[in-house]
C-alpha cells in the first residue's frame, strides 16, 4: 500500500501545528490568567525572601517584561527538555518526574484502549448481526448506562468489590513495596497484579462508546447491496460477518477511535487517583493540590503530546485499512 504523499504531508503538518498550538497554549495560559505566577506563587508559598522571587522570575523568564522574549526563552528551554523545576518534589526537574510517571499511564491506557476496542467490536458485531435479540438489547442498555457514569466512580466500585470484599486484587499502588528484591519474573507478576484492576476499569468505562459506534455502523453496512450479494453467493456466515460486514463498519469507527483517545486519557487521570497509581494522572493531581504550576504545565504538555502522537499513528495506519483513502 504505497502512501499518497499529499495525504502523508497533510497529516504530518496537522500534527505539528497541533503540537505547536499546545505548546503556545501551555505558555500563554498562566500569563493570561492575570498576575504573574512567580510572585503569586512566592507569596503563597510564604517563601518571602526576594532571592526566591527573583529566582522564580528568572526561571519563568519574567525578569524581562517583553512577552516575546519570555516566549523565546520558554521555547528554547523546551527544546533542551527543560520544563522547569517542580516545587512539590524539589529539586527534581519536571521532565524527570514526567518521564518516570509516563510509562505507567501509557501502559495502562494503551492496553486498555486496544482491549476495549477489540471487545467492544466483538459485542457490537454480535449485537448488530442479531439486532433486536435479548443480547443486543441488554448490551445496548448497559452501554447507555456505562456511558453516563464517571470513570472514577466505576473505579471505586471495582475496588470495593474486587479488592476489599473479594480481596482478589490490591487496593492500589503499582508495585509491591519491596519489589527491588524480587526476581525478574516476580517483578513482572507484581506489576501485572497491580495493573489489572486499573486496566479493567478503563476497559469497562470505554467499552460502551465502542459498542455503540460499531453497532450503528454495522447496522448501516448490513443494509448495503454487497451484503445481500454475499449472502446470495452462499458465503459462510463468518466471512460475511467479518470480511464483508466488520471490515466496512471498522472504517468510520476507526476515526471515532482517534478522537476518543483524548477522552480516554482524561478518564485515566481520575482513575489513577482512585488507585493511587503513579501515572501522569496522579502526578497532575498532586501538582494541583500543591499549586505546583510548572508540574501542572508539564503534565498538560505530556498528555497533549502523547495524544497528538497517538493520533498521528492512527492517521498513518488508517490508509492501510481503507483503500479509498490512500489512493485518491
Amino acid at each position, binding site marked *: 500500500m504505497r502512501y499518497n504523499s499529499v495525504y502523508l504531508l497533510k497529516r504530518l503538518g496537522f500534527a505539528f501545528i497541533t503540537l505547536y498550538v499546545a505548546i503556545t497554549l501551555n505558555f500563554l495560559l498562566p500569563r493570561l490568567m492575570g498576575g504573574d505566577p512567580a510572585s503569586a506563587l512566592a507569596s503563597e508559598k510564604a517563601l518571602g525572601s526576594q532571592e526566591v522571587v527573583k529566582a522564580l522570575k528568572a526561571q519563568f523568564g519574567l525578569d524581562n517584561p517583553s512577552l516575546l522574549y519570555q516566549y523565546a526563552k520558554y521555547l528554547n528551554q523546551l527544546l533542551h527538555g527543560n520544563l522547569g523545576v517542580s516545587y512539590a518534589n524539589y529539586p527534581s526537574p519536571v521532565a524527570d518526574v514526567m518521564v518516570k510517571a509516563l510509562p505507567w499511564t501509557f501502559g495502562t491506557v494503551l492496553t486498555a484502549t486496544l482491549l476495549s476496542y477489540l471487545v467492544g467490536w466483538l459485542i457490537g458485531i454480535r449485537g448488530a448481526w442479531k439486532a433486536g435479540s435479548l443480547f443486543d438489547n441488554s448490551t445496548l442498555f448497559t452501554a447507555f448506562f456505562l456511558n453516563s457514569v464517571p470513570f472514577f466512580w466505576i473505579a471505586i466500585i471495582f475496588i470495593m468489590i474486587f479488592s476489599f470484599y473479594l480481596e482478589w486484587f490490591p487496593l492500589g499502588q503499582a508495585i509491591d513495596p519491596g519489589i527491588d528484591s524480587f526476581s525478574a519474573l516476580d517483578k513482572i507478576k507484581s506489576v501485572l497484579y497491580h495493573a489489572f484492576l486499573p486496566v479493567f476499569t478503563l476497559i469497562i468505562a470505554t467499552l460502551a462508546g465502542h459498542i455503540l459506534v460499531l453497532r450503528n455502523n454495522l447496522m448501516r453496512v448490513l443494509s448495503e447491496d*454487497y451484503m445481500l450479494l454475499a449472502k446470495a*453467493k452462499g458465503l*459462510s456466515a463468518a466471512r460475511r460477518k467479518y470480511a464483508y460486514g466488520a*471490515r466496512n463498519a471498522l472504517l468510520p469507527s476507526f476515526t471515532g477511535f482517534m478522537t476518543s483517545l483524548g477522552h480516554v486519557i482524561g478518564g485515566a487521570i481520575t482513575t489513577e487517583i482512585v488507585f493511587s497509581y503513579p501515572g501522569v494522572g496522579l502526578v497532575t493531581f498532586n501538582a494541583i493540590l500543591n499549586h505546583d504550576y510548572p508540574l501542572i504545565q508539564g503534565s498538560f504538555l505530556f498528555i497533549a503530546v502523547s495524544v497528538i502522537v497517538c493520533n498521528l499513528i492512527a492517521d498513518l495506519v488508517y490508509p492501510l485499512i481503507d483503500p479509498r483513502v490512500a489512493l485518491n
Partner: protein
Amino acid sequence: MSKLLQVQNLSIEYASPRGVVKAVDNVSFSIGKGEIFGLAGESGCGKSTTAFGICRLLRPPARLAGGSVVLDGIELTELPDEQFDKLRWSKMSIVLQSAMNNLNPVLKIRSQLMDAIVAHEPDAGKEAAKRAEQLMRLVDLPADRLDSYPHELSGGMRQRVVIAMAMAMKPSLVIMDEPTTALDVVVQNGIIRKILELQEQFGFSILFITHDLPLMLEMCDRIGIMYAGRLVEIASRQEMKSGPRHPYTQGLLHSFPPLYGPKRRLEGIPGHPPDLIRPPGGCRFHPRCARAMTQCSSREPAVLADERGQVACHLYNEEGLSVEQASAARE
C-alpha cells in the same frame, strides 16, 4: 421446452406499522431451460420482491406467505437453510442494480470473484485464481483490473464484474434485477449484448426484471407484466409487440415515447399505484382502468390461459369475447 423453474401461487407479505402489506399475491409463472423470461412492472408492483422470494433473500419483515417454487425438480420452499445454501450460486445466481455499492469497497475484485468459487469448492485453491482471470476475459475486461478496488472502476465495468461473478459456478438460472437501470444507454447496450452473448454460450435461463418495457421487448422471449403484486399478463415478445390484451399493459406500452414514427400525443395511465395495505377490491387495476366494468370492482378476474399466453382480466373470461370484440378491446 422443459421447465427449469415453476412458481405456483407465490405470496409474500410484510408487516408494516399500518398493517400487513401483500407485496406479492398468488403469482404463478414458469421459465423454460435456456429461456429469457422478463418480469416488468412499475415501482411497488412486487417484481423484485418476487425474485428475492424465489432465492430466499427476503429481508425481515418481508416473509414468504405461501406458494411453491420448484427449480430443476427441487422444491425450494421446503429446503432447510444448509441445503439451500449449497444451491446458492451453483444453481441460481443474481445480478443486482448497478448502484455504487454492488461490490465490497474494501476487497479487491480478485478476492470477490474467487470467494464465490472457494465457498463451494474449498479445495479449488490456485485453480480458483485462474478461473477468476477467465471470468474477467469472459466479460472483455483486462485481467490486470483484478487487483484494483471497486471505486477504481467505471459503472459499466463494475456491472461487467458482477455479471462475470454470476457466471462463476455456471448456474442454470441467473436472476437480473434492473441490471442496467443506472447506466447510460450506450453502456447499457454493451452490457445487454454481452449478457445475450453469454446466454447463447452457456445456455442458462434468465429471469430479467426491469420497468423498461422497450428494453424487455428487445431481449426477452416471454414477458410477464405485474401490477400491485399480481401477474396480470404473460405473452411472447411477438404477441406483446403486436398487441397486448390487458388494459394496463396497453397503457404501459403507450407510455413510452417512441423514437420512430410520427409524433402523437401519449396518454399515460391516470391516477397512481394503489395502497397495498388496503388494495382496491376485485381487479386491483380497476380504479385506473378506462374500460372497468361493474364486476371488475367486485370479483378478482380468473386467469385465462391459452396458446397466446395468460391474461387476468374480466374482458376476457365470462363473456368469452369473440376475436373481433377482443381486438376492439385492444385498440
